[in-house]
């Protein structure tokens, strides 16, 4: 009798957990093909590479190289500068757009605008970067127009400089930032703005003291995405920026593809993750500080 009882108790417990069975395949897959490879990457950053294979000779050589090599340092700062300037540009371009979308456009058109913004977002990033070559190149649209109109005598070299890189990045990131800001802005309680207006705040002050602070959250999230993407992107700098002034992600690809020094490549990757981590921390601190100030 007791065994029957135990069996029914077990069956009940199992049937409670049965619903979670569906999580096993995806969890197993992600653990084996995502977490394990990343962990392995971390490990081999402490190894060496011989004959194009990582071998378990533990050392810190790779990291020493990463932190001391002058070329790496140059690439790092170049990436950082491009990232930060792109960040500022993106915010400047995206913010008014999102604001207009939420506060100025009649609601019935919003779905249309949203879809219109999302559509180019899903196109092939590589091809998009390439298309900018057609516009920014020596024979491209811009130069052609400028030459014909007589504004310049010789074609401007925008392509193959990091100005072009920034444009390429901006083109992708504007949508990301708009989407982030849009959600936050949409959730703002309009009565707060009306209350402020009622209390005597003109439109500019109202924006500065009421609307803007309420969007900081979305702005922070968007900033994080923009930073991570710009700092780590490989395609835009390669296609539009030319190869002469390498940036950090290109260093990783160089190490991996051209010299097959996987342990160095992974050390560089870890350094990249470190930078991102530091940035996230900074943003987190900043947001918290601003929130405290509000109180």
């Amino acid at each position, binding site marked *: 009798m007791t065994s029957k009882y135990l069996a029914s108790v077990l069956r009940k417990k199992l049937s409670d957990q049965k619903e979670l069975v569906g999580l096993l395949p995806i969890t197993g897959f*992600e653990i084996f093909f995502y977490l394990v490879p990343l962990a392995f990457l971390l490990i081999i950053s402490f190894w060496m590479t011989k004959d194009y294979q990582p071998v378990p000779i533990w050392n810190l050589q790779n990291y020493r190289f990463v932190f001391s090599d002058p070329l790496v340092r140059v690439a790092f700062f170049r990436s950082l500068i491009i990232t930060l300037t792109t960040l500022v540009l993106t915010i400047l371009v995206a913010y008014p757009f999102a604001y207009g979308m939420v506060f100025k456009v009649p*609601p019935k058109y919003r779905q249309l605008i949203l879809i219109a913004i999302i559509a*180019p977002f899903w196109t092939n990033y590589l091809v998009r970067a390439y298309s900018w070559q057609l516009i920014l190149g020596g024979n491209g649209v811009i130069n052609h127009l400028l030459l014909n109109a007589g504004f310049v005598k010789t074609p401007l070299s925008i392509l193959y400089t990091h100005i072009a890189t920034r444009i390429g990045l901006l083109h992708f990131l504007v949508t990301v930032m708009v989407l982030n800001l849009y959600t936050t802005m*949409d959730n703002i309680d309009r009565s707060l703005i009306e209350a402020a207006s009622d209390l005597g705040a003109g439109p500019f002050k109202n924006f500065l003291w009421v609307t803007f602070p309420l969007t900081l959250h979305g702005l922070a999230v968007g900033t994080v995405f923009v930073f991570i993407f710009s700092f780590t992107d490989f*395609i835009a700098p390669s296609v539009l920026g030319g190869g002469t002034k390498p940036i950090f992600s290109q260093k990783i690809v160089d190490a991996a593809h051209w010299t097959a020094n996987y342990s160095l490549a992974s050390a560089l990757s870890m350094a990249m993750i470190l930078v991102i981590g530091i940035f996230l921390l900074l943003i987190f601190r900043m947001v918290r500080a601003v929130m405290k100030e509000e109180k």
Partner: protein
Amino acid sequence: MKHLDRYLFYGYMAAVFVFLFLPIVTIIIFSFNVDKFASLPWRGFTLRWYQNLVFDTGILSSLENSLIVSTSVAVTSCVLGFMGAYSLSRRRFRFQDVFSGIMVSPMAVPWVILGLAMLVFLTRINLEGSLVSVWISHTVFGAPFAMLIIRARLSGLPVQYEEAGWDLGASRLRAIWHIVIPLTLPGIIAAFLLTFTLSFDEFLIAWFVCGFQATLPVKIWEMIRSGLNPTINALGSVIFLFSMALAIIASLLSGTGKRVAKK
């Protein structure tokens, strides 16, 4: 005067739209240009570059590879994603948020690092250098992404429908097949289309792991690398229109716009 600010914003937004669609429009226009160099003035209209597409075996085989891989990725992602989404939406458990966070992280990790990690790891287990490697690598971020999309749809489905199914004699699995899946179908299709597009357009990770079996983006990269080639314009235009169409359909299906319009 009252509406001046409104029109200012409209104008600005229009300018941003021009910026966003400029490269897309440009490449489509230039794909018909007779001139080899993408330059003005316009010298003539031709379909030559599109014809090239059809006869270039390199492009065709990489297209075939891409279609095979992306479809497989979409299928795998949707299956894994649906199972995970179903469990998540039916059961609460501790650490659910942490779990969700980890699941979504492949989208946030820099893909250059992800590509490198996949390359190193897959080489180690001898799964590197083929379409299978690309399939696995893309599913790594495809499955959680599909799970996210499907879950949004599933949580809107009251559990009563399933319970009614059980009560009427359908076992758990049959109830899922006859009731849950049909009612979640728009979400599943949206997840399928979006995961397909993500995989189809993805260059970096595929480049790392595909070896000699190039997918279409890898082939495009090689073409860009080897110099200005107007066939790229034709190819790019086709891809653009294809991706945008898929994305728009998926958007409509997953109701992104609907929530907006309701306000």
